[in-house]
């Protein structure tokens, strides 16, 4: 059964590891590709997804049932759209507990919606343990480790076993230091026209960076598609 939608959750139990940056990139990637997309922001405070991409983002909260319904009923809606969730570290445990309790993965697969977790890896024991916990709890989800190259080489990658469609690690390329002040001032869209105040050299650097990041996403999409095709042509034993 071919997927005709996906729900990608960008997650880490740690703050300030690049979840929102990754979500912004992924959202703008789909915008640029012309895919219908809805992004959901489960963060509080400054520098949130909703501040960077107000047009695509729905601010969400799962502290009460109404908020849970507003988020999950929309995520599971069979509307063919790509859904992206920027999961703040404060909501990590409650989000996945609820996801498990209400049977989200089974329902998503039943509706041909691919469930994906992009997990930003860090070397600390909490993050490693939480990753393996997700693997145990959600064996049918494409749980994919993401290495944010801003943190240097991923010497801790062996602590993470790769799973599902993410048999290889997805990389978030390191951003040139001079670009940071431009792209971290909201609102900012990577899919929009280049900012007039961006020096040519930095504009070129941004384009190179985006090409690398978007290539990672394209390859990842292909892997999900490939996994989907493999499962759809599997003959009954």
């Amino acid at each position: 059964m071919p997927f005709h939608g996906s729900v990608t959750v960008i997650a880490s139990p740690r703050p300030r590891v690049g979840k929102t940056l990754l979500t912004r990139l992924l959202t703008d990637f789909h915008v640029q590709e012309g895919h219908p997309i809805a992004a959901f922001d489960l963060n509080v405070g400054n520098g949130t997804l909703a501040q960077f991409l107000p047009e695509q983002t729905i601010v969400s909260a799962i502290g009460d049932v109404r908020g849970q319904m507003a988020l999950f009923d929309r995520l599971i809606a069979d509307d063919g759209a790509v859904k992206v969730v920027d999961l703040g570290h404060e909501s990590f445990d409650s989000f996945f507990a609820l996801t498990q309790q209400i049977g989200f993965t089974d329902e998503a697969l039943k509706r041909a919606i691919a469930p994906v977790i992009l997990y930003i890896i860090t070397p600390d024991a909490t993050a490693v343990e939480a990753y393996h916990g997700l693997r145990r709890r959600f064996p049918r989800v494409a749980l994919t480790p993401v290495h944010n190259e801003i943190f240097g080489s991923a010497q801790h990658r062996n602590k993470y076993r790769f799973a599902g469609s993410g048999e290889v690690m997805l990389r978030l390329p390191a951003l040139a230091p001079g670009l940071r002040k431009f792209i971290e001032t909201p609102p900012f869209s990577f899919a929009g026209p280049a900012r007039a105040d961006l020096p040519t050299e930095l504009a070129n650097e941004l384009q190179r960076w985006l090409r690398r990041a978007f290539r990672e996403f394209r390859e990842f999409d292909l892997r999900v598609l490939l996994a989907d095709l493999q499962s759809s042509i599997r003959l009954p034993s």
Partner: protein
Amino acid sequence: MPAVPVNKSNIMAKPTVILVGADKGGVGKTTVARTLLDYFGAHQTPTRAFDTESPRGTLKRFHPDATEVVDMTEVADQMKIFDTLGSAAASVTVIDVRAGLLSPTLQALNDIGFIESANKDQINFAVFHILGPSIASLNEIAETARSLGNATYFVVKNRINDTTFFEWDPATYNFYFKQIRDAFEISIPKLNEMACEQVEVASTPFVSFIANKTSRDEKANYSFVLRGYVRHWLSNVWSEFDRVKLIDLVSPKEEVGPRQATG
């Protein structure tokens, strides 16, 4: 906690009567009766129900096809239930006893010789006694147990509406509970209030709500989140029924495996 004993002489199909009652109102008798009807339905066990909230029954609202409203104080209605046990297509009869009528009903069953038939192993008889939050409910246990004969007795702590429902002194509770030979304790977990409310509004069996179906078996548009809450809760309730091997009581031959409330 021991499992419900299965008497090998009972292996022949034998009618089963399950009384669901309490001497207090508002403790969730009908909710438990609904979970039982869904449970037996999931086990393909033909079941009928009688709702004693005459003239308008709550159970009938949720399970209209399986339920008949009766007045347990009327001899004609008692005949309707008990004289048809051997001839009805359904092997299980669930009776949702109106608030305050549990003790009188058990007395009436004694008077008509039903308890004696159960004692002679001609009928499987079980009582689901739904406890209320007060200490007075504990007195009911001893009082009810005296009228039971060989019935299988389930003491049900229904937490569906309130997590702080049971705060009895454990010693006091055990004192009453242990007076009853072969009593089984069942705990009904809490269900999210909004999910509970939406099933009420939908007026469907829990399994239909989970499957996103209306009472007329048409596709509905219930919240996926609320359906998820109900699915999770009903699975936990059925796990309790599995734990006490309830299905062995009504159909001893059946192998019971883990089963989920799927939607």
